[in-house]
């Protein structure tokens, strides 16, 4: 059992991280009152942008290019998310539909561009982030091999962002205002907060984080842009609800998904897991999500004004 855990854990984490940062992005958007079904698409955009950046830079600056790529992914996701912000904040669009449109546009346009760039639609980078053991920590019995071995720098970056997000959300005036916009935008407005601006910021953060998520996929386990993030964006959405719109809830939920999917993938090379029917392993994460959603449905912490149009009747 220990061997399996030790085997699966690091890769589970690697798989979890993009999911986590994306769900965290969704958290900001929804805490600000905007549902963002477009996370999937925003991930793809970041995925694409980082691939293009890295391939074009890798020759000149082999190491730096990866980090520039991550940044590019973030920025691209952020810019793209403005489409969603504009639709749902200024134009009172149905946020679910707008998000769906974002997904479709992202999927279509990135492949379209990739194909005109590479002729095929795939973009392969020469090398991504290296993995390393944290010098001393990885020697800690038990925890060492699980948490501090075989880690990517991106993992620690994202975990850092997670803690910062928690602090920003609950300990700063920004967080207070953001949450107010998600719970009762009119109250926020009468307290002199520019709800429109706050919501723009919220959505753009979600875009940046989702973009980063896509980029992390590229520089960690995939190494090639192939036009799809295989539904991770939607999983992130589920994880967000599963994690009850709380940063550490998201941490737990996404890690659960990460492990479940990793186990399902890796089971074939682990005799002990080989005995479980693969079908069960494959559908496990999704079934559990449904169950979790039922369990939490009673005590939902969803932001009150989530998905509702905010309109002061100005103009």
């Amino acid at each position, binding site marked *: 059992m220990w061997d399996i855990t030790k085997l699966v854990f690091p890769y589970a984490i690697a798989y979890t991280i993009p999911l986590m940062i994306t769900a965290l992005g969704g958290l900001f958007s929804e805490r600000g009152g905007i549902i963002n079904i477009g996370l999937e698409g925003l991930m793809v955009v970041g995925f694409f942008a980082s691939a293009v950046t890295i391939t074009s830079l890798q020759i000149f600056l082999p190491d730096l290019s990866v980090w520039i790529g991550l940044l590019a992914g973030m920025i691209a996701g952020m810019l793209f998310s403005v489409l969603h912000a504009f639709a749902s904040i200024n134009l009172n669009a149905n946020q679910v539909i707008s998000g769906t449109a974002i997904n479709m546009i992202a999927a279509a346009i990135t492949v*379209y561009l990739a194909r005109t760039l590479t002729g095929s639609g795939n973009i392969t980078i020469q090398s991504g982030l290296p993995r390393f053991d944290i010098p001393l920590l990885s020697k800690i019995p038990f925890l060492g091999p699980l948490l501090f071995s075989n880690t990517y720098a991106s993992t620690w970056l994202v975990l850092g962002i997670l803690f910062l997000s928690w602090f920003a959300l609950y300990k700063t005036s920004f967080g207070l205002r953001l949450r107010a916009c998600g719970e009762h935008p009119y109250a926020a407005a009468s307290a002199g907060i520019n709800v429109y601006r706050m919501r723009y910021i919220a959505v753009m953060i979600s875009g940046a984080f989702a973009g980063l998520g896509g980029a992390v996929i590229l520089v960690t386990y995939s190494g090639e842009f192939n036009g799809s993030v295989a539904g991770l964006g939607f999983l992130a959405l*589920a994880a967000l*609800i599963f994690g009850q719109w709380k940063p550490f809830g998201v941490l737990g939920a996404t890690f659960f998904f990460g492990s479940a999917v990793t186990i399902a993938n890796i089971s074939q090379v682990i005799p002990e897991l080989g005995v479980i029917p693969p*079908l069960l392993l494959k559908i496990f994460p*999704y079934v559990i999500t449904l169950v979790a*959603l*039922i369990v939490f449905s*009673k005590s939902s912490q969803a932001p009150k004004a989530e998905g509702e149009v905010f309109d002061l009747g100005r103009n």
Partner: protein
Amino acid sequence: MKKELNEVTKSLIATFLGLLAGALLMLSIGSNPIEGFTYLLKGGTMSIERIGNTLSTATTLILTGLSVAFAFRTGLFNIGVSGQMLIGGLCATIVGLTLDFPRPILLFIMLIVAIIGGAIWGIIPGLLKAKFNVHEVVATIMMNWIALWVVYYTVQAFLIDVQETQSADLPAVAQLKVPWITELFQGSSLNLGLVVALLAVIFIKIILDKTTLGFELKAVGFNRDAALCNGIKVSRNIILSMMIAGGLAGLAGLTFYTGFAENMQIGILPAQGFDGIAVALLGISTPYGVLIAAIFFGILHTGKGFMSAMTDIPPQIANTIIAIIIYFTATSLLIQRLWVKILRKKKSKKNAKGGVD
């Protein structure tokens, strides 16, 4: 002059804007839009066979579009069409591969089980929504993945003949393809599915506009609280709506896997399921609108290959156009506002001339 643009006009404008964006993209890679669109259109219509293919592509889209639209009318967003398609197709394929009846009976049974399969896959999120208020978007997405793997392993376990990537081919009697149609349309993939789809359109049209069921469903869709307060069973209607939507998706699966294709494809969620959302939105969630939108998309999908064969424009342009159209339908308020501005200008001119209104 009307102040409110009606939905149809909005859809048309959105479509126009989508095509415009497509043209710009073509220009951006140094291709000639006029040429591009000409070939796109030709590719979908220039021969009987191509018209046939356009229609057979539309067939599945009509049904997936109906599925999404129907759920919409009850205020539900069914992203689970792909999964429901898979299950419907699977059920039909199992019957087609195992049972041995005279063709009409066999096809009828396949039709029924397809509906049932899809309906079951729709009921589950419906129940979760009605009883536990689980957001149907997330639920249906989960159901999609579950369906993907269920089909994958069921087919591999029971329906594989030699190839690992799809089920065994259905016998001719268990396919919706009929010789005279195939002949008539010069060997296109058009099949009985279109009839099914058209009947479904009429059926749904009647349900929504003429029956008490439709009245209930729409009431729930527009204002859940009011419906409840006036004695309408909201949960029941939500479940019912998802069930019917699922059934329609199941039919889409039938037409796709036993009509368009001749076997069960595994390992992928059928894209038609997601295109259904676009079809429904562009068709403003009305049966006839869906019909027209589906045919329009049918042309795009059938024509894009020919276009990219004749020019350097990648076929992905089609999906890009569709996606952008949806964005503009979602943001129709923008169009509305522009329209109002235009009116204001006109008005102020008139008033300036001393006219009143």
